[in-house]
């Protein structure tokens, strides 16, 4: 089956390291924006977080103001009107406000606490019509949103689609991951062959505008797979990872790629992912950037596509920041490498429930 291309007419992201270019530069130099901070904001054990400011929820929300710098780069269109649908994704939305309400009993927090109310606030704040499709699937949220947006584009509902994703940390989220014992007191070292692991969490927001009009970068071969083996674990034999990656590998054939993996810093999933990539894409270097910017949760797919675009623009792919020493597989790249010899990148994200999402990002300047 021929898969249509969705061309990226515009894109951008913000992380505590800056915009896409600044975040890319930081990763390329091997630095991280993660810092050890108390897990509950003012108190609790120190864990690695990459944040714009304190994670406590405020009124008005800091995150809404923070998004203004990102939205300023979105091309002006009648977003939300016929022909210009908006797809908004997140795993958190404004959920931190519900804990803030629980503690303070200040009703105003509830106006930002849920998916629909936070999206209504965003649409109202930025003048978009309130017709957004909202998708939320934990850490593959943005990838799922991109797939839905591509279909809207190619099935006739859109001239262009805006995909927008935002995830800002709060004690609700950091406390939850800490309770699962995967957000611990050490910096993440994705794919490192060692005995202990931790993820790091990060603030992040991003957008892409998808179009049918040719542009330099394009996305295709968007795939989803869901193991449904366990809420927080994958099939222990790695078949979930292998099956998911085999599907896109079969579709893209001989396209020479590097792989931007999910790589949060958890031991078991990191090992399974690295082994599956080595098996399915034996010639592809594998990197993860969550050791630098942390895991931006439901927005990671959209934040990281922006960083992959920067890598293709500048010809150098940042390595797996935070990882030194032995890795699970030899194809894990801990330092930067040139992408001159590659035609594209497979972008992969994973989530609770054994969810897998992957797609192919290509640079037409290298394909032609």
């Amino acid at each position, binding site marked *: 089956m021929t898969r249509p291309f969705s061309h990226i007419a515009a894109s951008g992201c913000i992380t505590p390291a800056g915009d896409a270019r600044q975040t890319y530069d930081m990763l390329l130099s091997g630095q991280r924006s993660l810092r050890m901070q108390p897990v509950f904001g003012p108190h609790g054990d120190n864990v690695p977080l990459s944040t714009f400011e304190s994670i406590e929820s405020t009124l008005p929300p800091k995150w809404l103001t923070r998004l203004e710098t990102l939205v300023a780069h979105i091309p002006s269109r009648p977003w939300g*009107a016929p022909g210009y649908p908006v797809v908004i994704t997140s795993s958190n939305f404004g959920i931190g406000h519900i*804990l803030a309400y629980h503690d303070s009993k200040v009703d105003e927090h*509830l106006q930002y606490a849920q998916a629909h109310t936070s999206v209504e606030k965003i649409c109202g704040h930025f003048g978009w019509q309130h*017709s957004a*499709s909202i998708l939320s699937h934990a850490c593959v949220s943005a990838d799922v949103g991109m797939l839905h947006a591509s279909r809207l584009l190619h099935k006739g509902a859109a001239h262009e689609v805006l995909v927008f994703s935002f995830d800002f940390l709060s004690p609700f989220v950091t406390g939850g991951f800490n309770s699962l014992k995967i957000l611990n007191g050490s910096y993440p070292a994705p794919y490192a062959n060692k005995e202990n692991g931790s993820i790091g969490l990060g603030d992040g927001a991003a957008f892409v505008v998808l179009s049918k009009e040719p542009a330099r970068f394009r996305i295709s071969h968007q795939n989803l797979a869901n193991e*449904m083996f366990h809420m927080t674990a994958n099939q222990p034999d790695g078949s979930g990872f292998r099956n998911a990656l085999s599907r896109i590998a079969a579709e893209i054939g001989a396209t020479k790629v590097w792989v931007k993996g999910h790589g949060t810093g958890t031991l078991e999933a990191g090992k399974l992912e690295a082994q599956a990539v080595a098996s399915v894409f034996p010639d592809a270097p594998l990197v993860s950037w969550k050791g630098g910017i942390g895991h931006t949760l439901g927005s990671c797919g959209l934040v990281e596509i922006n960083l992959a675009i920067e890598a293709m623009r500048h010809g150098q792919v940042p390595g797996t920041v935070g990882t030194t020493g032995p890795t699970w597989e030899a194809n894990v790249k801990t330092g930067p490498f040139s992408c001159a010899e590659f035609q594209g990148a497979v972008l992969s994200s994973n989530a609770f*429930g054994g969810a897998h999402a992957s797609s192919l990002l290509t640079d037409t300047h290298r394909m032609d």
Partner: protein
Amino acid sequence: MAMITRYIHSIQTTGPYENMDPAHVKELKAGFPPAAARRMTRLALLIGKCLEGIQILPDDSVIYATTFSETMCLESYLDSFPNPSPLMFQNSIHPSGLEQVLIARQQPISEFLPFAGRRHVMHAALTAACTTDKTRQWIIASEEQGTWLTEKGCGSPTDFAFHIGASDDPQGAIGRIIWDPSAPEAGPDDLLSLSTFTLFQHVSTRHTVASYCDSLGRILIEWNP
């Protein structure tokens, strides 16, 4: 661009229930292995009930929609601070309701599209059923009644769940979903909001649904006589 039609082959609803009797919850749990049922939320049990006897295949498209998600679980998670409960945290994350059911069934699927939102949530979900490349589509929606979150307008006043099973095959269909992506404006009788409960009511009574959303065109659900 041409309209797209999907053919409805099954619907199943459960609810609405207000202040569900614990004995009823126990009945719902009987549909699952005891070890799994112990950890499942009421929302998941309702979804399990409305999928009873339904065989979802690995290559089907599974589309899920909810506005309030795991309300009781969310309340319990908040109450667990400053020692947050890992089980309540993982179960509170959208779209855990349907995931709990599929995990209990050990049912892998390829395509899972979980929608959130309120005003247009079912319009968006039905649009997804019409745009997927998969030949069979399951649209599943559910809400769970809360306590203080419901009082604050952040939870559903009732428990309910439903599914619409659709495919590309018109043979034996009981109805159809038609998506017109190019509809320029709403018709005089079109709904301008299609929440989970509104569609639940229409599906339960097999009423025609005509819904318009500015950026997603027009959705029509018709039932065969």
